[in-house]
Structures are given as C-alpha cells and as structure tokens.
C-alpha cells in the first residue's frame, strides 16, 4: 500500500493553476525523485503535503489518514518531516541543541515542560551528529556553520524526529561538488531505513540515487518510471531535459 497518496490535487492562486488534478503516490521504503522544470509545482506539492498551503480541491492521504488541510505541526506529528530549500535551522542554538529540540517526543507544552535530556536522548543526538559528521562542531552556534554544513545539520534534525516520510527539497543547492557527493551519500544511507521524496535538479546526483523518478510539468505528472525510461521519453526531453542531456 502506498504510504503517501495524493488524489486529484488542484491548487489555484488568483486564477493561475499551479497543480492541476495531480495524482501521485509514494510507496513505503522508496526513494522517489521528483523532477520538473521551474514552476512545474514541485515545491508547491511539498508545501501542500506539509500543510503550508491548503489545496483548492483534492485529497492527501498519508499512512491511511487524510491529512488534507491540516496544520504543519499536526502533519509533522503524523510522520512527515520536511527539509526546506534554503537551510532552515535555529541559528543561535548550538548544533547539539538544534538536534535536541528536533528529537521525537511529545510536543505539548505541559508534557514537554518536565522533560530532561536523558542518557538515551544524548546517545541518539551524538549518534546522529556523527552520522552527518558534525560531532566536532556540536557545541558551536549553528550560525557559525558553512552553507553545506547547515544543510547536513537540517538533515540531522529531520532524522532525529524519526519521520515515516522525509521530503527533501533540493538539499544540494549551493553546495560544492564535494558537498553534493557527501549529501548524496547521506541521502542514500538515510533511504535505507526511511521513505524519501527528493526534489533534485542535479542530474549527476539523480543518477546516483534514483530508482524511480516522477516528472512534473505544469502541475501534472508528465512521466513516471526509472530514470532511463523517463530520460528516453520524447515529451520529457522536449519540455525538460532539452538537448544538453540524455
């Protein structure tokens, strides 16, 4: 059964249709790459799934529950964690604390009030920090990290929350080649135990990671399948990949 199912999703903003009756599904333990030219609706789709915007019509079913139109924090608690396009963390908090506040736990104010960082929490935080190779910087405020390190810290925060589905919106933007390679490796390792939906432009990375690719165009699914199938697809080549690729 599909973990995430999007049925007939439509979004219109001031008469402009961004997503047009979109049907889309992600299975459990899958690493799905979402491709599409600028304005295809990739980020909008992610924003709709995570509750940042509300759809005009259509349903989003996650893990058997209808989460359409829910608030972002509720959707997170249902098990969806999102990485933003621009690194998005708590700048004055230490790297350690950034991961600590992201740990999976009760989120209600009065349940949270008496919480302490237990030994297990501490172990888990260090485990995650070592996974993204930021353990050496644990005590420093997050705003001293370089751009790439910030991206990895955000990945670390996502893992800490033990999500059922990770939505990664262009996690390699603005990175050096080496940084992109490291990110690709991290994502690959994360995908062994998590379901991942990845938006990525860098075809080099996509080639390394993708088993199954979905191409969006003008708010609709244009093609879906293995990367080779998609790349060979005439329409896809016409609208997206152009002459330089494939």
């Amino acid at each position, binding site marked *: 059964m599909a973990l995430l199912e999007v049925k007939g999703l439509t979004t219109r903003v001031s008469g402009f249709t961004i997503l047009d009756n979109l049907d889309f599904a992600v299975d459990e333990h899958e690493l799905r790459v979402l491709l599409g030219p600028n304005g295809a609706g990739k980020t909008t789709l992610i924003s709709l799934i995570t509750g940042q915007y509300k759809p005009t019509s259509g349903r989003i079913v996650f893990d058997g529950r209808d989460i359409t139109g829910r608030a972002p924090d509720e959707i997170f608690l249902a098990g969806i964690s999102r990485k933003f396009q621009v690194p998005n963390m708590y700048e004055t908090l230490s790297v350690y604390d950034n991961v600590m506040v992201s740990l999976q736990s009760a989120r209600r104010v009065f349940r949270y009030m008496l919480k302490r960082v237990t030994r297990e929490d501490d172990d888990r935080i260090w*485990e995650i920090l070592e996974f993204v190779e930021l353990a050496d910087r644990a005590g420093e405020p997050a705003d001293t990290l370089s751009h790439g390190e910030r991206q990895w810290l955000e990945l670390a925060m996502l893992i800490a929350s033990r999500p059922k589905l990770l939505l990664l919106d262009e996690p390699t933007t603005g990175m050096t080649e080496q940084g992109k390679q490291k990110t690709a490796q991290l994502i690959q390792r994360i995908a062994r135990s998590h379901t991942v939906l990845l938006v990525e432009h860098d075809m080099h990375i996509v080639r390394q990671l993708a088993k199954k690719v979905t191409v969006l165009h003008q708010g609709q699914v244009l093609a879906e399948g293995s990367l080779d199938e998609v790349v060979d697809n005439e329409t896809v080549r016409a609208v997206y990949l152009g002459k330089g690729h494939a």
Partner: protein
Amino acid sequence: MATQARSAGERKVRRSRLLPRSVLVVGALVAAAISAFPVVGGTDSYVLQLIGKFLCFSIFALSVDLIWGFTGILSLGQAVYFGIGAYTIALSMKLNYTIENSTRYGGTIPDFMVWNGLTEVPGFMEPLLSTPIAIALALAIPTLLAFIFGVITFKRHIYGVYCAVITLAEALILEQFLIEYQAYTGGFNGVTDYGNTRTAQFLWFLVVLTALCFFGARLLTHSRIGTVLKSVRDNDVRAEFMGYNVANYRIFVFCVSAFLAALAGALYAAWVGIISPGDTGPRFSIEAVIWTAVGGRATLIGPFIGTFLVRGLEFLLSGSWLANYWQFFMGALFILVVLVMRDGIVGTLLNWYRARRRGAPAEIREEQDRLEKDRQHDWRPSSEPGSRNDPV
C-alpha cells in the same frame, strides 16, 4: 548508524550549569549588600525606597526579557499586567487603610469614591478587603488576561510588529480606562495615601522574591522547554514544521511573563504606596523594554543590571546640575546601546568573552567556507559523471 562510537570524554558540549558558582557568589553579595542597607543607611532613607523600587522593576524587566529576549515576542504593553497587579493590591490596601484611618470626610470608604458620589464600597470590590484574596487576584487576573490575549493573537498567527502594536494599544486602553472610571480607580491621580510596607523586613522579602524569580526564569530558560522557546524565537517556521504548536508555546511563555509582571506590580504598589495610571501605560512598558535592551536581552542578569543602571543613572542625573538635560542623556544611552551594542551590556561582554575563547562566528564561518573551497579544489571525481557506481 554511527560510524564509530565516541568516548564519553569527547562528547562534552560546554553547557552552562543551572546555577554557576560565580552567579551564586555575585548574587549573594548583591543580595547581602542590598539587605544590609537598612542597617547602614537607616530605614527612612530615600535610597532604601529606590532600591526596593528597582528590585520590583528588575522583576518587571525580567518578564519583558522572557518574552522578548527568549521567545522573540516584543510587547509594548507589558505594563498592563504590572498595572493590574499593582492596582489590585493598591485598592485592597486603600480599602483596608480607610477603615482604620478614616478620611478627612470622616467616611470609611476611599476619598476618591466619596468625591465621585459613592456611598459604599461597590460589591465587586468587596473581595479585595481580604488580603490573601487580593494577592491571589492580583496575580491571577493578569495571567488570565494574558492567556486570553495570547489565544486571540498567537492562535491567529499574529506576532512580530503587529503584536507589538496590539500590545501598545492594550496599554493605552487600560490607561484611559483607569482615568475614565475614576470612582473605582482614583482616576488621573491614581490611588494614594494607603500606607506602605517600607520596612527592612519587606526589603528582605523583596530580595528573596527577586532571587526566586531569577532562579525560576533560569530553570525555565535552561531547561529543554527553554531551548524550544529559543528555537521559536530563532525560526518559528522551522519549529512549526518540527511539530511544535508554536502558538501554544507563545501563549505559555506570555502567561508566565504576565505572572511575573503582575508580581512585580503587586510588590511595587505595596512598597511605594502610590500608584497612578501612568504605571500601566505604554510609556512605562517601553521603559522596561529599554532597561532590558540596555542590560542585554536573552541574558537573565541583563534586565537586572539594565534596570539598576538606567534607573540609577536617572536618579543621579536628575538630582545633579544636569537635572534639565538628563532625559537627553538617557535617550543618547539607549541609541548608543542599540547602535553599538545590540546585545546590550551583558550580551556584548559575553560575546567578547566567547569570541576570545574560540574566535568570532564570522571568522569561523569564513574559515569553514575557505576550507570547503580548498577541498573542492582538491576533489577529483572518483567516477565519470553519469556512471552508476554506488559511492557507498
């Protein structure tokens, strides 16, 4: 998942202790100095009254710091909660005072009620005759009001500048309300002549309560929930997408802060023995913001130092030959702090100390970016672009 286990020794993150020994020592010295004052300076001195006032003000500034410095909610109407706490206690003391010391009109109800044609204490004020009930109300009403305000604004995602403007309006409304309903509030003159609690013992009490408030605030800000509050301040969108109901956390800290402000107001009214609508208005609210900014927001000792420094300077300057100009100096001090020391006095000192210990953030970041560029320069693709080799 971890590649190699890290020994416990390597896993240290430098965390400040809940109560560093230095804070305890300095705090104890300050408390002792303040408490010893009545013995040295006598219980009648003006300076004694000032110190008590400043202690109340520093609790008030602490309440501003909790929401502004630690959670990023700028309230320009915090004096509302201070004022309601203060008025509740002042009215209670006044009612009891006039029963024992009849007014010059011979009645047993407060003079301002007589002027406005009331012949007996209105029913809704009767609970105030009991001191314990008055104290409970002085703390509960502002907290409840803050809760209602929080639900209305934060649940609708109103914060930032809009929240500041709404709180400002709140303070204006209360100030006007108190002036308008003078039969119950004493109007423009406020509540006066109800005695006071200006004794050495009460100063001790103030010192202990101030210490407790600061300790409680430190417990809150250095606990796990405190980290969540700071994360809301740093990036509320991220916090929301991390499953935190940001509005609820804001409401929570707003209520705690209103409670502290109400406590400060109640103590102030009892200590000083006079309260006027100005103590609930925007001017006073903004003053508290200034004390906090000067001392250093997002530090707990900052509001304390800021209050004593600004109010102390005000006292010294207004009494000197500069009496006509001291407000210019206070304005200049505030502008200077905002321009040159954005983190206030304590914050700037802390930053300087931390920078000395491990290099300034900007330098570290530059170095990291340079290292990353170097690595990129050295990096050679292990496989041809487009190959299917698994890099793991």
